[in-house]
């Protein structure tokens, strides 16, 4: 396949960025999108040009590091995949592909397509945990039975990989799906319920301080989430937040 790539190039956080056109040939449909990017970079290096910086690590859809906005969608046109799991067979010979970083003020560009998502870390630091120390004397794991439905729901919420596709896809750059997944996981489990009030208040406060937009329930995040995290989590967090506000 021969393709035209329009890629966002930006030297660093402070530099001006712009879209640059490249053409690439001999792309195999069996390549993953990132392998196509690797090949493109090899070609740029051979020509003495600066390769395109992009984040990636596990390349099997679980680390959450890859983060490209491809043809107007987070992780490209396929559903329930990350960029590293997107394959070139989803494109046609002669296609033009635009590749941009995940954009949000809370996700400043580091270089080219790599962005800084440490805002997510800070939200978790504000309350995304259960306050239990490692002691070797915690109560037996089976001491508290947990309703399988709750456990399964908690698991579904916990599968979030923190990639930021929800923020990138949301027209408001809202981080509600991400935050609500974590809040939900803990609020569904007895271990997490104890500090549910402070958790949701602190995490939402931090989320707001990071400069994410507001949720307007468009549902784009749910559609683009590579792990299919449900909007139910956002409702649950709204609920948790309301009760916490009344309590606190």
């Amino acid at each position, binding site marked *: 396949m021969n393709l035209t790539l*329009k890629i*966002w190039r930006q030297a660093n956080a402070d530099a001006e*960025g712009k*879209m640059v056109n490249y053409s690439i040939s001999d792309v195999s449909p069996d390549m993953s999108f990132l392998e196509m990017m690797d090949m493109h970079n090899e070609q740029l290096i051979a020509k003495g040009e600066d390769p395109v910086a992009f984040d990636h690590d596990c390349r099997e859809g679980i680390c959450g590091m890859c983060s490209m*906005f491809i*043809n*107007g*969608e987070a992780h490209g*046109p396929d559903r329930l995949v990350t960029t590293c799991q997107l394959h070139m067979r989803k494109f046609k010979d002669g296609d033009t592909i*635009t590749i*941009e970083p995940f*954009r*949000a*003020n*809370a996700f400043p560009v580091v270089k080219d397509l790599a962005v800084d998502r440490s805002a997510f870390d800070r939200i978790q630091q504000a309350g995304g945990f259960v306050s239990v120390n490692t002691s070797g004397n915690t109560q037996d794991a089976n001491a508290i039975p947990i309703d399988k439905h709750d456990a399964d729901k908690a698991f579904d919420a916990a599968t979030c990989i923190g990639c930021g596709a929800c923020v990138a*896809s949301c*027209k*408001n*750059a*809202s981080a*509600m799906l991400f935050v609500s997944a974590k809040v939900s996981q803990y609020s569904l489990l007895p271990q997490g319920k104890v500090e549910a009030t402070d958790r949701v208040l602190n995490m*939402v*406060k931090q*989320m*707001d301080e990071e*400069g*994410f*937009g*507001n*949720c*307007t*329930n*468009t*549902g*784009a995040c749910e*559609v*683009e989430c590579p792990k299919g995290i449900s*909007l*139910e989590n*956002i*409702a*649950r*967090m*709204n*609920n*948790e*937040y*309301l009760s916490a*506000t009344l309590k606190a």
Partner: protein
Amino acid sequence: MIKTSIARKVAMALSGLFLILFLGQHFTINITSVFSDKLFNMLSHFMGNNPLVQFILQPILIFGVIFHFVMGFVLELKNRKSRSVKYVTFKGKANASWVSRNMILSGIVVLSFLGLHFYDFWVPEMNYKYVEFLPQDPNRYYSELVHKFHSPVRVSIYSLSFIFLSLHLYHGFSSSFQSVGLNNKYTKGIKLLTVAFSLMIPIGFIFIAIFHHLNG
């Protein structure tokens, strides 16, 4: 007062739901004009002169309307600011409905319509009652209503505005429940109710306008 994102979202939802209730009540009264001018006049007179409605409910309603649109603008501005470098290509339609992404647009149309509506009915009404202190006339409402729908331009504007109101409701109604934290097995039902409400109420209002235009 309402500072955090979720509190604002909930406030938007609650004010919206309140306006939906009002809309339902407004429609119920208006539709009576189609089959009984007497009933319509009676209800209108009650609403226009009952002190509870006039001095408690009406200010709350006005506050609700103002709050809903001011907060709408505030949120829209903040949301726009949260992504200052825009995407070159953003395929919004791939993952979200047009109505959900354009609430501000449908909202502005509805707001403009409200301006016209206030000019048509509320301002004259206030003028009649509280500025000129004209004598009470329990039978004037029906004829005033019919009179307003003489002009085909006005009827067209009304109809168009109600289409936008329909779009606004189509997303806003069920979305309000999500915002206040209800997303469960009843959500399907709420979605159905939303479709029904967002179609029937605006169509009903349009019907009233056209009905009086043709029969007036």
